[in-house]
């Protein structure tokens, strides 16, 4: 009997010990995994924050540079060109008709340069963009493109107009400029249709061209400047809580849609 009692005791104690060990092991692995995942998530969050701050700084530096260039064009180059135009206007010219015509053409050229530089200065100046608002800035930009005579640029605005955070408007405008720049440089498009949609819960900007189009996946994987440009646009859109979608295929033009939900506009 004592031997049997011992056997029962060993069985019960041994079983409980093994069960206890098993449960401990499970709890340990489970919490270890949880802590590890928490650590990974914190690390990822830190990296994301760092990237965001880096991008924010880059954007601030870029805006500051644009502001300086704009100021320089307006205060210095513009002034000098205006003076040159004044001189041309007031110069007493006596000579052959051909020379007179040349001077007249030069005066026209200088006037055009002054006008173009004024537009450029305005489109670079972040203060002007934040003052006039996104809709007006986009319209001015399209007018500049249309003035070149090479593009048919159209703007439609739908919904009840509203404004949102000026900094975010500026970033949306810079994304739009990048899109327009890409169209001019790479697409061989003839028509650019832009629409600004002010829906109650959602703002969207869509840019459609009838250019060459491209393979999006291929381009995104490229490490060159163009691929980088697209990634930059996407990063900027993400930074303001927006969503940038692209639809394109070779020979069929491109549609780029930027959406920004209401809660991200503040």
């Amino acid at each position, binding site marked *: 009997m004592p031997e049997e009692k011992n056997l029962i005791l060993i069985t019960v104690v041994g079983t409980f010990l*093994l069960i206890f060990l098993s449960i401990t092991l499970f709890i340990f692995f489970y919490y270890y995994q949880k802590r590890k*995942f928490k650590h990974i998530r914190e690390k990822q969050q830190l990296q994301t924050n760092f990237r965001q701050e880096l991008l924010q700084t880059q954007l601030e530096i870029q805006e500051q540079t644009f502001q300086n260039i704009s100021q320089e064009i307006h205060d210095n180059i513009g002034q000098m060109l205006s003076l040159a135009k004044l001189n041309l206007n007031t110069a007493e010219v006596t000579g052959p008709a051909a020379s007179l015509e040349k001077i007249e053409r030069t005066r026209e050229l200088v006037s055009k340069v002054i006008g173009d530089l004024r537009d450029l200065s305005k489109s670079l100046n972040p203060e002007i963009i934040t003052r006039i608002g996104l809709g007006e800035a986009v319209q001015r930009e399209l007018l500049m493109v249309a003035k070149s005579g090479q593009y048919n640029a159209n703007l439609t605005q739908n919904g009840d107009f509203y404004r949102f955070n000026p900094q975010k408007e500026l970033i949306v405008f810079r994304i739009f400029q990048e899109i327009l720049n890409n169209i001019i440089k790479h697409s061989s498009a003839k028509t650019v249709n832009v629409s600004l949609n002010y829906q109650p819960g959602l703002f969207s900007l869509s840019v459609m061209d009838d250019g060459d189009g491209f393979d999006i996946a291929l381009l995104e994987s490229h490490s060159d400047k163009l691929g980088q440009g697209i990634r930059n646009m996407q990063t900027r859109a993400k930074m303001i809580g927006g969503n940038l979608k692209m639809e394109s295929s070779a020979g069929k033009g491109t549609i780029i849609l930027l959406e920004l939900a209401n809660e991200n506009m503040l």
Partner: protein
Amino acid sequence: MYWIKVVYFILMFLALLASFWGYGQKKYVLFIPLLAISLVTELARDFIRPQYPGLEPWLDLYVVIEYIILSYIISMFLISRSKKMLIRASIFILTPIFLINIFGEPLLDVKYLNHLISAPFLCVWTIFYLFEIANTDEEFDIKKNPMFWISLGNLLFFSGSFFSYGFGGYLAEKGNDDLADTILWIARSLNILLYILYITGFLCLKRKT
């Protein structure tokens, strides 16, 4: 103890039904034959064996099938190739030993010898799986992971029933059937826990699907 037996059979049947949520999923589909064989074996052990004592070795085949299927299932959940290979190799090495123990000359004259051999291996394979989930970089949600509950059940059952089967078998060999039966109730209770955890796991599978 009759009602525990009833609960045991009901749980086995429910686990079998619940395992059908894994139908069409490569990693879980093998639980259906495993649980079906388990139910048939237990029913045969209780209702047919008393009339046909010669059936005993064939019923012991369940331990072999259980080891093969469970080991294979665990190996499917592992990422490490070497551990997968080790587990699958163990199936080829241990299966002949199990069969010799049933139909030939056993290595040791101990009852439930095959269970005593397979249980520690299955515990180790389960711990391999736990190591892998501990090292995964993705968020691990126990509500969405059937294998977590199934592994918990396996580990508790195979580790907890080791002493029970060991000493139960020893006492049965010595002719002390009453005490052996008492000790084996520990294993039966753990079996109930195993099926409850299996059902919990399969419920997660339903949530997933």
